[in-house]
């Protein structure tokens, strides 16, 4: 299996270049026997800290399942997933909950804010769940997030009083408030119009570049993927390509190559060949 290693993109604010999230021969099989579906098929992939990576692929390619496995939301059939030095595939529910609370942030397609809390209460919720009283450092971090995401005048509003884009920015702030090692964003622009979507993507990129966070985003939209520093292409549960410094055009070209190869040689030939095909 060909594994493509991404060359880090230099950012001005972060000097750390460590590996954050890794998968080793990670597999997820649904069903068994003849009906077995290999949603994620022996994937080896590494994501570096301080970068904004997009996982891309057509529907049913296994990109969401891969993210669930990497985030400890779902249990793997075989293989290993690591967050830093922690092997999350071996953790129990209690440790996973704590891991999600302290080291992982989530941004959802449908925002998933708690309707009875204000924007500010929603943002602070992860700290509250951890039972820690926010210190001055945490409050300063919150202020920085709020100003970066331009939420200053919306803090006392409830989700029903916010636009979709504003709700998603609140969700991003909530995901970042505990300074997690990594933030997983699942189709964060799926429920937004293109203008709000672009705005949210810019904010995600700023969070990485200016605040030094690590974000892994799942999307099927090439335009959205182009905001990332790197795009990992997935097809049929395998890594099918890797694009550094993507542009909408290069992502589309990669997808097209994937599609034509699939048409030409069937699904299983694509993984190995496409990796070279999409390399600039």
């Amino acid at each position, binding site marked *: 299996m060909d594994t493509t290693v991404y060359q880090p993109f230099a950012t001005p604010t972060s000097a750390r270049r460590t590996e954050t999230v890794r998968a080793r021969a990670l597999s997820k099989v649904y069903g068994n026997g003849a009906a077995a579906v290999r949603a994620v098929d022996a994937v080896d992939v590494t994501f570096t800290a301080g970068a904004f990576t997009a996982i891309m692929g057509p529907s049913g390619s296994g990109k969401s399942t891969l993210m669930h496995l990497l985030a400890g939301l779902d249990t793997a059939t075989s293989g290993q997933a690591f967050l830093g030095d922690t092997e999350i595939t071996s953790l129990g529910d209690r440790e996973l909950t704590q891991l999600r609370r302290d080291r992982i942030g989530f941004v959802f397609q449908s925002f998933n804010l708690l309707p009875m809390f204000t924007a500010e209460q929603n943002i602070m919720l992860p700290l509250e769940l951890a039972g820690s009283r926010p210190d001055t450092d945490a409050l300063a971090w919150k202020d920085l997030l709020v100003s970066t995401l331009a939420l200053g005048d919306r803090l006392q509003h409830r989700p029903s009083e916010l636009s979709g884009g504003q709700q998603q920015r609140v969700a991003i702030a909530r995901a970042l408030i505990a300074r997690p090692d990594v933030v997983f964003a699942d189709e964060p622009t799926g*429920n937004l119009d293109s203008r709000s979507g672009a705005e949210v993507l810019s904010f995600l990129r700023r969070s990485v570049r200016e605040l030094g966070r690590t974000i892994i985003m799942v999307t099927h939209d090439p335009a959205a993927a182009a905001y990332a520093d790197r795009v990992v292409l997935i097809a049929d549960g395998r890594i099918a390509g890797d694009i550094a410094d993507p542009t909408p055009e290069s992502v589309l070209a990669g997808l097209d190559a994937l599609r034509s190869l699939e048409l030409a040689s069937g699904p299983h030939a694509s993984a190995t060949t496409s990796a070279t095909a999409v390399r600039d």
Partner: protein
Amino acid sequence: MLRLTLAQMRRSIGRLVSAGIAIAIGTAFVAATLLVGNVITRTTYDAFAASYAHADLVVTGAVSPEVVSAVRSTVGVTAVSVRPQLGLQLSAGSHRAYVLVTEATSEPRLEPQTLIAGAFPSAPGEIALPRTTAERLGLQVGNQVDTGHAVGTPSAGPATPAGTAASTPAPTVDWAEKHDRLTVVGLVDDPAGAFASSDGAAVLSPAQAERFAQDQAGPSPVIDDSLILTVDPSPGTAAVQHELTSLLPREVDVRTRDQQAQASVASATGDTQSILIVVLGFAAVALIVAALVISNTFQVIVAQRTRTLALLRCVGADKGQLRRSVLTEAALLGLAASAVGLLTGITVVQLTLQVLQRTNADAHLPSSAPLSVVALVLPVVIGTVVTLLAGLAPSRAATRVAPLAALRPSEAPTLAARPGRARLLVAGALTVGGAVVLVLAVALSARVGSLAALGLGVLGGAVSFIGVLVGAVLWIPRVVGVAGGLAGRMGTSARLAAANTVRNPRRTAATSTALLIGVTLVTMMSAGAVSARATLDGKLDSTYPVDVAVRAVQGADGSAGGLPPGVAPTVAHVDGVRTVVPVTEATVLVTSTGTGGSTETLHGISAPDLVAVLRDGASIAPLDDRTLVLSPPVAKSLTVRTGDTVTVVGTDAGGAARPDVSPVRLTVVVTRLPGHEALVTPTTMRAVAPGAPSPLLWARLTSTDSAPDVVPAIQDALTDQSVSVTGGAVERASYQRVIDTLLAVVVGLLGVAVVIALVGVANTLSLSVIERRRESATLRAIGLARGQLRVMLAIEGMLIAGVAAVLGIGLGLVYGWAGAATMLGSMGPIHLAVPWRDLGLVVLVALVAGFVASVLPGRAAARTSPVAALAVD
């Protein structure tokens, strides 16, 4: 459309089942009540029928000697047995018993009891006793038993000479007790429960029974209770019945055995019916609570189906079809749940009967409850109708779904709109108006009589409570919000729970209201009961000077001797008795200056003993050898005041001053002593009435609260003695037992409503869990542990239940106090009491139940995978 309704029901089966439980419990309650009514009617019928043995005809009404002889001489009557209105006081040694009496008959078909030993009496001076009575008296065949019965003789006074007694409108009759000694010749058993009230009846020979009945009737002719007879088959029962009906006066009824049993049941079960109606009232409360729970569930089901309903509207369903679909669903649910409830009710009653028959063979219960059409149909109809009514509001909500809703992305249910101003006005008017009527009822109770005041009070209470319930949606969520704010300081889970409870004010209000009704009524009964008890206690304290008075029963010769020597130590040894003081007693003539003499019963007791034995001992004015201490009523009847001087002298049997003692001059002291009392010291007593016996014992209990336990203990300890036990504590014990029993029954009945309400709490929580599936998953994804999620739901349940309990207690106290004040207002000062123990129990039960109600939904919520947060629906 029906197919679609059924398909939708299948999808919501879990929720429908939990709503169905509420209606099933209510229906089971109704069914059980009706069945118990049937059992009581059947038992009563069986007992009446059994008491007429196998008689062909029964004659009731004014059964005079003329009627008896007329029946005897009628052609076709083969045998006649008279049922006298007669009871006998039996005594053997120190044991006593009271039995009903029947007459021995030569016709076995007229004898309802069976002989188990010896023979039926055939001559005067013989008696056959029920087995149980004989055992209690320690008697066997061949023993002697003393009987006592009342004898009326025309008064010997000059105004009504014996000869003219009958013609005087109201002849004066002197009553005395007559004693006889009879020989026990047989023992009988009463297997059919014909005389269940006295555990069987004693049997006398006809001549003996007639003599006793004549004694008891005094100067008036004997009127027997009834006459039972057998008929020769040749003229036949119908012909003889016809003959007798035309022959006998109109005040007499001639019926067949079955007709008579039915007629007796009809007149005897009037009380049963009213009790059943009261119990059905409680069933109605339970059903109202069930309706709230069901309405709540349907609201949520409709809300969850918004998209489907909108889709149906898009493809052409009209509003009526959607409404009918929801109502059909309600009707089907109501029918199924009611059927389950009916079966449950029948099963519970049958099982209870089986158990009672095993454990209580003397109860003469039927082996199975008679099923009537009413008992089978009515619960199902009521259950279905209630469910249908509860479905009305949700069905209207279903029609309000716009077709457009199918095209919009589904959103989390938004906060419900604020309830209207109209509701506020209606609720306010009802609450204030009802409260005014209630206050009026309390204020007027002393003047207009307790029944009218009670009617007014019930009206005011009901109206104001309806107002409170109508307005519940306006204020309960706020109260829950405040309580949640306080609870929210405990941590994140509590803060989440508090925020959740106010998300859907309407649902929170409906859930709390269901519980509020039950708790309010339970508290009302409890507070009313303790207040009534406190008020009656206060009344008794002013009536009886001492807790317990033990008095020697007059001997057969009418003399009042002293107490048997063993009595005082026996009473003193009973647990809970603090002080025992013997009191001497004599009848004396009291003469004050200027007035003639007046007879009083004088008690002799020393000053320290008096202080020790009286409950309010310290307040008694000093009793010494020169004073006569009187309670206010005695002072009033003697027209004397404190400081007056009177002369006192003992009297003889004829009521004249004893010639052997000289009158003693005493100074009157009027005290706050309760009751009708005249007291002197033993020294004075010896001077006034030398040799006065001591027939009385005064005892003080350690605590009046223990009266219900201590008084029966004293009575048990003295069963072998010819003494009577009276006093404040005795009265207290008897009415406390009545109040406690009533309270237990009422609280038990209302408990059903509380149970249904708790099912409602569990229901609401599990619906919330389903609704918030994605939200729970989000919380789990961002780091809420499973335990925290469960704690959150537990706090939510306890908040709703706890607030309902506290509010219900507040309302119930007000209503309970108002009720006690209205009912007892005419009796004097009202003591309002708080049943702390019961209230604590109510809050505890509510909190525990709120917690328990959250367990299953909590488990379901905790199973939600965090992945669900990422799902898009």
